[in-house]
């Protein structure tokens, strides 16, 4: 999360479980992180449900607001959120979030492997 949050234009990053509980975060404050974690899970669940209803599977969703851009990418444990400045380059942002999601998945697999 720290590596992702240090990328140009990105202001914070976190991984949340599907129920909104924070798993890992790199944000300015813990309180903001917990709120954003819950919001990320809700946005991710809604977007995933939307595509699943159409027989597809969600990879990532980008929400553009006046103050921020949010990328929510799917990971094994739930969702990854990258919050960026509103003028950040969308495609690059999406690619970085997806690459980070891959890293999170690899780390999860490694952790599960070491526990078994």
């Amino acid at each position, binding site marked *: 999360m720290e590596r992702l949050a240090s990328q140009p234009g990105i202001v914070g990053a976190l991984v949340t479980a599907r129920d909104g509980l924070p798993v890992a975060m790199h944000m300015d404050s813990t309180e903001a992180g917990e*709120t954003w974690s*819950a919001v990320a899970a809700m946005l991710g669940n809604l977007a995933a449900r939307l595509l699943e209803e159409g027989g597809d599977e969600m*990879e990532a969703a*980008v929400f553009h*607001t006046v103050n921020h851009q949010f990328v929510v990418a799917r990971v094994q444990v739930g969702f990854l959120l990258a919050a960026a400045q509103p003028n950040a380059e969308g495609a690059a942002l999406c690619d970085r979030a997806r690459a980070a999601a891959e890293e999170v998945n690899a780390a999860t697999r490694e952790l599960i492997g070491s526990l078994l």
Partner: protein
Amino acid sequence: MRKWLSRGAAPVDFVAQADRLRLQGKLEEAEAVCAQGLASFPTYASAHVLMGDIFRDRGLTAAAEAEWNEACRLHPEHPRANLRLAQLYLARGEIAPAMAALELSLLYSPDSQEGNSLLAQATEAKPRRLGPDRHAAWLTPSRFDELLSAIGGCPSVTATALIAPDGEVAGSGLRGSEQSGLAAMLMLESRHLLRRIEAGPLRAALIRGKRRDLQCFEVDGFVLLAYLHLGTPVGLVRTEIQRTVAALRRRWDDGGTKDALASAA
């Protein structure tokens, strides 16, 4: 499920005591107890909900709304805070935000009698037909098909739909499994959630799938959905659609001016 009280010791005592006082009609005492507790536990969302209830009972609606919003800011999915906001929006006739708050509330308390009864009321209150007075001045019902067909003609777009501000489908070029209702719900709820974290108004959402992408735009209060060819660059489709909408508006504006001039002549 997430705990509404996530940090520190559980200060449930002051909330129970303040609520008892509220129910006995001792509103000033209830407020004092709750305020004192909140001074020690400012991030306790349920206490903010109760403070909102106390303000509501005292007839201080704006202060009540601020407390319920604060509870939702702390815990966006708090069922009771969302329920209170839904009641307030519904009383004001703001159906779309009421529905969005209710969806959140019922997501975590699906069996809530109060929530389900409010949802029935909100559904009942939802206008069945689109009235011309609720449309943006330039986006009239007679133009929906033209707009959808123009957007559908963009190279990146495979199918489109237009959702009115109240969640009704105003026009659709979707087929089979393409979901306009769910997409409208996604935009309404995202708008609601993002407002809670002070992210500002939602302009657009892009959902990338394994088979195709879906872009949702705000167009003068309407939600425009566009299913895209897989891998369409994020910026490209936005530019294509914005240009198409701008060109249509220019044409309609020119037509309106010509009609007005003809009438005047």
